[in-house]
């Protein structure tokens, strides 16, 4: 393998995206645009969530229509301790991961007994249960949401309330999660998961207990999503059950598919494009007609439809095709 084989459009774009994301705090300071650091932080956090969803969706063929629940659980695992004045991040982050992993274990054990569209719907049902649970917990704000007035406290000198510091925590998390997922997908475990996606009967015949492998993958995915949720709780300072509605889960799926579900880095492209579209379509529309921006869902929906109809393999698949040409 020589060096020139590595210089493919996809690798170049990946390198460019990661470098730009890595330099975001510097760029936004130099150009004095702190607002864009806000968007970048959101992109990086959601990329963690989308990449973890992709482990089971893209590589395992399990279409979870309820992953927003894990993000919500992670966020409340920060919000509720802070409500009781426990500020330590060494409590929040492990709690977020543990509770989401437990929720994934219980719901996954039931959901994975079903297949296809039943799996889509049962994961949606479980996330709706969590949605309604938090909606009715009036102690923690109910549907008014919960204010998080502090950030998680970690080491001295690592203050999460500083936007740049927090951004780097998120960015390092993203890179770490991507590397972890890369290791998982290419391990023996990952091969079993991928094998079970393309031919489950054959994997079972080869002696692999595919149900258990899938369940472990589901738990890993849920736990990582919960971690993303804990970052989100620190980022937004305001959380509400709204962040776990089924529409949010649908958005997460769209981010994954838009970026390309067959690749580790794909979801990052997906989240990036999704949030940039969300941010700039209204602005562009306002240029054409004042106030038209409120209708931004219309072009957004059309783009979504066109992507599904005509772009197979998402952005990542598109870049791969450029390489082969």
């Amino acid at each position, binding site marked *: 393998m020589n060096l020139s084989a590595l210089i493919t459009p996809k690798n170049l774009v990946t390198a460019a995206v990661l470098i730009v994301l890595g330099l975001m705090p510097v760029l936004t300071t130099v150009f004095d645009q702190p607002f864009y650091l806000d968007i970048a932080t959101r992109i990086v956090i959601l990329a963690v969530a989308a990449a973890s969803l992709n482990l089971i969706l893209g590589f395992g063929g399990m*279409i979870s229509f309820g992953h927003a629940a894990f993000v919500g659980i992670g966020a409340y695992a920060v919000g509720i301790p802070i409500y009781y004045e426990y500020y330590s991040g060494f409590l929040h982050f492990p709690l977020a991961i543990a509770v989401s992993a437990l929720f994934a274990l219980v719901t996954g054990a039931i959901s994975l007994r*079903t297949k296809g569209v039943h799996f889509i719907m*049962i994961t949606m*049902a479980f996330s709706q249960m969590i949605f309604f649970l938090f909606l009715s917990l009036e102690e923690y704000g109910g549907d008014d949401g919960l204010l998080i007035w502090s950030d998680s406290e970690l080491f001295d000198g690592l203050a999460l309330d500083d936007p740049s510091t927090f951004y780097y925590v998120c960015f390092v998390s993203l890179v770490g999660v991507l590397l972890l997922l890369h290791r998982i997908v290419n391990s023996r475990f990952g091969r079993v998961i991928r094998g079970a996606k393309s031919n489950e009967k054959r994997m079972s015949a080869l002696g692999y207990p595919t149900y258990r492998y899938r369940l472990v993958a589901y738990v890993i995915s849920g736990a990582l999503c919960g971690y993303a949720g804990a970052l989100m709780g620190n980022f937004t300072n305001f959380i509400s059950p709204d962040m776990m509605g089924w529409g949010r889960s649908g958005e997460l799926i769209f981010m994954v598919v838009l970026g390309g579900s067959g690749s580790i880095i794909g979801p990052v492209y997906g989240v990036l494009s999704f949030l940039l579209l969300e941010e700039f379509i209204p602005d562009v529309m306002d240029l054409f007609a004042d106030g038209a921006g409120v209708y931004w869902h219309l072009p957004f929906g059309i783009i979504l439809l066109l992507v599904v109809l005509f772009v197979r393999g998402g952005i990542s698949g598109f870049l791969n095709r450029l390489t082969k040409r």
Partner: protein
Amino acid sequence: MESALLITQLLNGLQLGILLFLVAAGLTLIFGIMDFVNLAHGSFYMIGAYICGTLVYLLDSFVLAVILAVPLTLVVGYVAERLVARSIYARDHLDHVLATFGLILIFDTGVHLLWGAEGMSIPLPDWLQGQVAFSSTIEVPSYRLAIIAVGLAVALGLFLVVTKTRIGMLIRAGASNRTMVQALGIDIKNLFSLVFAAGAAIAGLAGMMISPITEASIGMGNDIIIVAFVVIIIGGIGSIKGAFIGALIVGMIDTLGRSYLDQLFKLVMSDQNAETAAPAISAMLIYILMAAILAVRPQGLFPPKVR
């Protein structure tokens, strides 16, 4: 007093169940015949309500408006099928979910553009506004009875069409074995256009009937579509009978759960705990039911017979 409340709640549950059935009927047939997951089916419920509302103000007659709005919703459904749904039947469920999610955004914003962000309240004619008294303590709004009557009539009509006519026979055959129907020389694509459009119109009818009570609003379809999915999964995908029974079960459990669960809980726990837990559990009840049924009997209660 207690029995009067119970009867009111039972009627409310019946009404919810019947509206759910009207939405779920099209959904389950579309799903059963073409294996197509249509998240945007709830949009027809919303569009029906808005079209009907506009016609009520134009024509000044609720009944006439409904009679005209049903075929108009049918046309909207037909266009959506030809433009979008038709080209993705052969894809996997993930593409269905995403494409119809996109359709929801387009429909919701389309309604926002045409009718504005505010909800639209729809006036009822005087003769539907009264109460019907069954006894000195039991009074029921006559409009609710009208909804139940119309819904039951549509359910009966649908049942007769599906079980007694040639079209219905093809629909049932398509739901059990699509390939075989095609092999016998039936144009399943046209059949499906028909089912899709008719399903849209019936869902629209449900939206028209509920909107005088709740008002027509953006997102009303998104609330009901998820519950309609619960219904068809409980009932068994592709089965009209399953959709009907599933809808009644869900309607009853949801309504009665919301009004009586706290009393039930008070038998086994303290009053305060019961009052905290009951609203949470009652909102989750139908999802718990669905998860339980899926775990034990993934094909639903009344799956269509295959072969």
